């Protein structure tokens, strides 16, 4: 145990360095110090001299490696310094005030959410196949499809206008704070419930079908005992694995919760810092977030050992790395203590000089020529290519997705395991129904991806546009089937009728909803297509080979997952620009981690099962074992994760739109429609049709994916065969 903890502690150092390096690089790619200075100087038009002075004052004038070294040193010593923004408040002071507030809300949301999700998951898993299960699935998907903002507005409406129990917003320190925390907690709990219940249900079902449960039942163990002592205890490993992933997000509080309920926590502050390019705050928050995550992982491992007697925490023998760190750390500490001695100072100056020379070398010898080559020979042509062909390439994507799916189905259909599964699926009307719905969405997306121009000067129109060409465009909002416009001081007669009304720009909501399909399918589909193979590969090699490969993969995903998703997404999109495809790539970057962790864990479980050992004994190669033996056993988990992930991805578009970094204007997207609801729902009389259109479309798609995923999972699970 002790050696395990020592090892953990040691490994946290490279992780912290990796995270800081990643933030540092991302930040410098997304904005120059001059921009940061301009942003944070109060003067309307700061002079060049003011900017230089500011950069000097905040240490942005030094060579990059030196800046990074300073940055690392300060972070490790928890010297966060002052915020870059106007007034330059002390970051640590602020954390001391805002941290506990965020922690209170986050832990309330976290624990109440965990308990509620497990209770519900137990209920739906236990009553599998009954009306409770179906109603549960329906409810969960509904909970998932409705976006955060709607819960917040509904929560404020119900508690504020109907029940009047708690304050709508604000915060007071001390015991009174719980009065202010209840509403955010309820909202946070409900909005996260759907996805967790769906996931935990899978984990529980997995356990419930195992032989020992049947044995226990046969022996007459009470249902309560089976459920709580056997199933729940054994399912808690995957649940715990999953729970840890939420920790960084929790630590930063919820950006939306804090801004809507005006809670003075870290979430709102960090989000502001990101948008205002306040690097000093961002780096401190990322660093702390990483620390908390590492502690979270360690605690998870310890709790693994507590719930599962098979798991032993062993550090093993210390390797060269550990020993070198143990030796070097006190020396570094000592050096720091005597940093004012002339000899140390001289060496420091020498090192700084070295850094300066390195930086110069980098700029003149490497970055300059490479940068020149990049912008001249690569970026230019690439940009030209992209600006000319991005639309056709984008239009290909729905087709690619369909082709990949069809190929996968046809190819796997030849294998006996899958052939049987398809036979069972075909006879299941619910599965076929949901498949049809998915296909319909795909069809609409494809229709919206085929476009042509009538003449050289005309704008290209897609097939979908042409189908709905006769739908008239109005001035502004109008209610479904209304005859006059809505929301204007002087309502005007409409040109035509609209089944689902029109939005603020007078566009037909039904058409807009259909046009959103393409974006949703591309974001969900492309990202899943990128994420799944990457996560499968990484997770399986990590789980199967263990040792250094496992360390490397774990290192990689710990680094990525320790940075709050939103920060990572914003930085990536600021760096790479924000087109639909960049959003997909950025989302892949953040979402492979969850799947990878899950697959690694599952692979670990299967690695030592008898059938794998037998295969190994027979001399089957590792990659063949992975693809032939382990992969089929992982598929149910992968499918469920992918379906849940798909809906999560489509939903995250909404959050990005809220942050102002969604898809470009002019592309139909449910994210925009739902984001507009922020204003529309707060209007009185309420404008519901725009939100209703997008949410219904989203709900149907997510429901279809979930139901299909469930039935498919049942179909390919050999244990459920009759």
């Amino acid at each position, binding site marked *: 145990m002790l050696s395990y903890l020592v090892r953990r502690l040691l490994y946290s150092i490279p992780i912290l360095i990796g995270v800081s390096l990643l933030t540092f690089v991302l930040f410098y790619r997304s904005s120059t110090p001059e921009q940061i200075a301009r942003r944070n100087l109060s003067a309307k038009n700061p002079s060049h001299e003011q900017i230089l002075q500011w950069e000097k004052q905040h240490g942005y004038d030094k060579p990059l490696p030196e800046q990074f070294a300073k940055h690392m040193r300060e972070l490790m010593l928890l010297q966060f310094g002052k915020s870059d923004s106007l007034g330059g408040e*002390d970051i640590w002071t602020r954390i001391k005030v805002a941290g506990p507030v965020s922690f209170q809300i986050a832990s309330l949301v976290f624990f109440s959410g965990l308990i509620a999700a497990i209770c519900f998951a137990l209920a739906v898993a236990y009553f599998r196949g009954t009306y409770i299960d179906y109603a549960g699935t329906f409810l969960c998907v509904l909970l998932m499809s409705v976006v955060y903002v709607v819960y917040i507005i509904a929560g404020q409406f119900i508690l504020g206008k109907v029940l009047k129990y708690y304050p709508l917003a604000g*915060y007071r320190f001390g015991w009174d704070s719980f009065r202010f925390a209840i509403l955010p907690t309820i909202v946070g709990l409900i909005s996260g419930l759907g996805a967790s219940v769906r996931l935990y249900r899978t984990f529980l079902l997995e356990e419930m079908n195992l032989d020992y449960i049947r044995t226990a039942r046969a022996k007459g163990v009470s249902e309560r005992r089976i459920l709580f002592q056997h199933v729940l205890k054994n399912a808690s490993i995957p649940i715990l694995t999953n729970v840890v992933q939420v920790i960084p997000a929790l630590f930063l509080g919820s950006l939306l919760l804090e801004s809507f309920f005006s809670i003075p926590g870290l979430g709102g502050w960090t989000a502001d810092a990101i948008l205002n390019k306040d690097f000093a705050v961002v780096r401190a928050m990322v660093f702390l977030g990483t620390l908390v995550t590492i502690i979270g992982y360690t605690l998870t491992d310890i709790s693994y050992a507590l719930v599962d007697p098979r798991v032993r925490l062993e550090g093993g023998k210390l390797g060269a790395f550990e020993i070198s760190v143990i030796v070097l750390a006190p020396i570094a500490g000592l050096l720091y203590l005597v940093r004012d001695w002339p000899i140390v100072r001289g060496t420091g100056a020498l090192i700084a000089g070295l850094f300066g020379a390195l930086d110069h070398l980098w700029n003149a010898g490497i970055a300059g020529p490479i940068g020149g080559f990049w912008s001249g020979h690569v970026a230019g042509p690439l940009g030209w290519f992209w600006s000319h062909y991005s639309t056709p390439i984008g239009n290909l994507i729905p087709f690619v997705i369909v082709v990949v799916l069809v190929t996968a189905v046809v190819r796997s259909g030849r294998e006996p395991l899958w052939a049987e599964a398809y036979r069972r699926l075909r006879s299941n009307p619910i599965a076929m129904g949901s498949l049809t719905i998915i296909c319909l969405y795909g069809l609409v997306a494809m229709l919206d991806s085929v476009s042509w121009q009538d003449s*050289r*000067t005309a704008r290209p129109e897609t097939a979908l546009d042409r189908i709905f060409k006769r739908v008239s465009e109005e001035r502004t909002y109008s209610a479904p089937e209304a005859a006059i416009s809505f929301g204007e001081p002087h309502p005007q007669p409409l040109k035509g009728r609209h089944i689902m009304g029109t939005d603020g720009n007078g566009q037909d909501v039904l058409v807009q909803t259909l046009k959103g399909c393409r974006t949703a399918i591309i974001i969900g589909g492309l990202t899943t297509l990128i994420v799944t193979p990457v996560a499968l590969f990484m997770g399986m090699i990590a789980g199967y080979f263990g040792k250094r490969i496992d360390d490397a993969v774990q290192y990689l995903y710990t680094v990525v997952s320790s940075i709050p998703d939103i920060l990572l997404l914003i930085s990536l999109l600021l760096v790479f620009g924000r087109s639909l495809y960049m959003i997909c790539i950025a989302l892949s970057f953040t979402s492979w981690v969850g799947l990878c962790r899950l697959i690694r864990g599952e692979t670990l479980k299967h690695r030592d099962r008898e059938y794998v050992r037998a295969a190994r004994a027979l001399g089957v190669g590792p990659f063949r074992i992975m693809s032939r033996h382990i992969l089929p056993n992982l598929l149910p988990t992968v499918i469920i994760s992918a379906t849940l992930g798909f809906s999560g991805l489509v939903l995250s578009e909404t959050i990005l739109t809220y942050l102002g970094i969604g898809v470009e204007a002019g592309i139909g997207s449910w994210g925009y429609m739902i984001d507009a609801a922020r204003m529309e729902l*707060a209007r009185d009389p309420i404008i519901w049709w725009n939100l209703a259109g997008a949410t219904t479309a989203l709900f149907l798609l997510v429901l279809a994916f979930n139901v299909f995923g469930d039935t498919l999972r049942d179909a390919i699970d050999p244990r459920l065969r009759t």
Partner: protein
Amino acid sequence: MVSTSTRRPGRGFAAPRACRLVRIASCAIALLLPAVSGCSNDPYPAGESATPTLYRVLSDNPKTLDPSIAYDVASGTVIDTVYPSYLQYHYLKRDPFVLELGLGAADPKREKWPVQVTEKGKTVTKTGERWTFTIKKGLHFQDDPCFPGGRGREIVAADFLFSFKRMAAPNVACPIFSFFSDKILGLQNWRDENTARLKEAKKRNPNGPKARVDYAADIPGLQLDPSDPYTFRILLNQPYPQLRYLMAMHFTTPLAHEAVDRYGDENLGKDAPDDQKFSVHPVGSGSFKVTEYIKNLRIMLVANPNYRPEFYPTEGQPGDRENGLLADAGKRLPLVKSIRFNIIRESITSFNEFLQGYEDLAGVSQQNFQQVMTVSGRLSPEMQARGLGLHRDKGVDISYFSFNMDDPTFGGTSEKNRKLRQAISLSIDSREMIDLLEQGLGVDAQFMVAPGLFGYDPNYKNPYRQFDPSLKQAKQLLAEAGYPDGIDPKTGSRLTLIWENLNTTPLGKQEDALVRRQIQRLGLNVDSRPHLFADYEDRLDSGQFTFMSFGWVADYPDPENFVFLLYGPNSAKRNNGPNYSNYANPEYDKLFDQMRIMDDGPERKAIIVKMRAIVEQDCVWIPWLHSETFALTQQWVKNYKPHPVAMDTMKYWNVDAPLRARLQAQWNRPNYWPVAILVLLIAIAIVPAAGVVQARTNRRVRRQQEGGR
């Protein structure tokens, strides 16, 4: 691993289960009771609403509370109550706005004065101006530990000059320093000397204590009267009538050097405690003082006992008496004892709190417009029943689109490009924009100067701002510019206008679609690029745009503050000025130099008309809106009258606190039955499930085999 149970199923089951249910239920009730009973949705400490406290919402943290730096509305709202100035705007009078004495004892005396200026190495004598200011006697700063004994000391003329020097200090980023830098004698010199001094000190001893700005040095333009500590003079090298208005801004408030020494950010070491910095700990002499500031949550202000005797105005405009605005005439200010600013970012939240009675004021926006107003522009019956007051506020501002005059296709002075700009200007239907985006509120702008200011002409119609649905003239101009039907003959495809904007919010997206649709009617393509504010400012400052949209709110009610937005030497790209369009027309600049120093009169008006004609033909801007907003006040708020320029108005407001406490209690009675019904429903839903559990526990092995899985 697997545990076995020796208990046989089915026996002795019912009784313990019932017990357990009761136990669980009682536990749940025990947990829920304190959560539900005695709960109140009052966000304030008990009883506070019954005290004369004003509740206001800020939609964001103030950027800073330092009066030499603050330049945003949220900051101004807070610190203008803390930092009074020499002159202030009369609370009730409008058209024109009237400046009255604040801290000043006499109106500033402005006289022509010969000054010695060094130009190109030679000393020449120019006609400048000398302004003499005399302040009231017996004014005191607020009590603060920075003063000896903690008691605020008397304010003298030197405190005013100190604040001018601080604006010029190299380590204080004053946003309006450029207004003074080339005018007050020796100020720029003093700044340069200090910059050099600080730099040298840093070079000599990089780790030593920070060098301080030499505030004791004499500046020829800022003079104290040796015989009278209450008089100071300002020497300008050119006439500058706008100085009068600047003396009514918080930048020129008297500052205590003790406070800056102790709290000033520029003097503090790295380890200074955060809550004691000048940017969060203002030390002023105004009607209120800040007692608590928690970011993202609240700012508390209480009445300053050291505030000078000031009384509610006894005269106003016609109609003010009828509206009850003179009921408190002659009473000592401030009328309320404290102010609580709640920092709430989401307008939905703050409006809901307003409807509950926990906020005293609210704005009317697109969101609540239909709930609050009727078609005829009156309060809706629902709101009338709540006794709300409705106040119309005409903003002194302008919203506009602008071309970049450095752009090869759309900018420049060539006839061809000018016609292109005129065509685009004609395609924008600002009436439609105002109807759809501003609920029909606001003035369809024709020129830069806002209504209510000298030089605004309600009868003027800009020929290129007259929208005609047939777009006949616009299309003709477009063809004359060489782009028939929007087709660029060089490429054979449509000309694309790249539009940089800030439209990332839902409302912004509506504006985005609307403007694109309007311009595209001409046949042009519009490529809209929304930015976050940070990136957007960078782009405008460095002139990286073709077409953009922006707004300007007046610093003071003088047309100069609007027309200088197109003054050549104010170019953003070249001189860091506010002229983002990079427009430079020598004729316009000459006229500006003339009108800037004139007094209001027919001559000044004539020049403004000439400038207008130039801007109209060049069509650099497409002005579209002078805003107009509505504000709502609760029935217990008294003396509210919106002032578009002055922000130090809260000292005049009053609240009927007992009425507020009574109505709050009446409007916020908790409603328990929905929760009771919910609990009941859950209980009913649990019953059949419990039945299934029982059945499964009791089932026999044989029956299970018969019934399948």
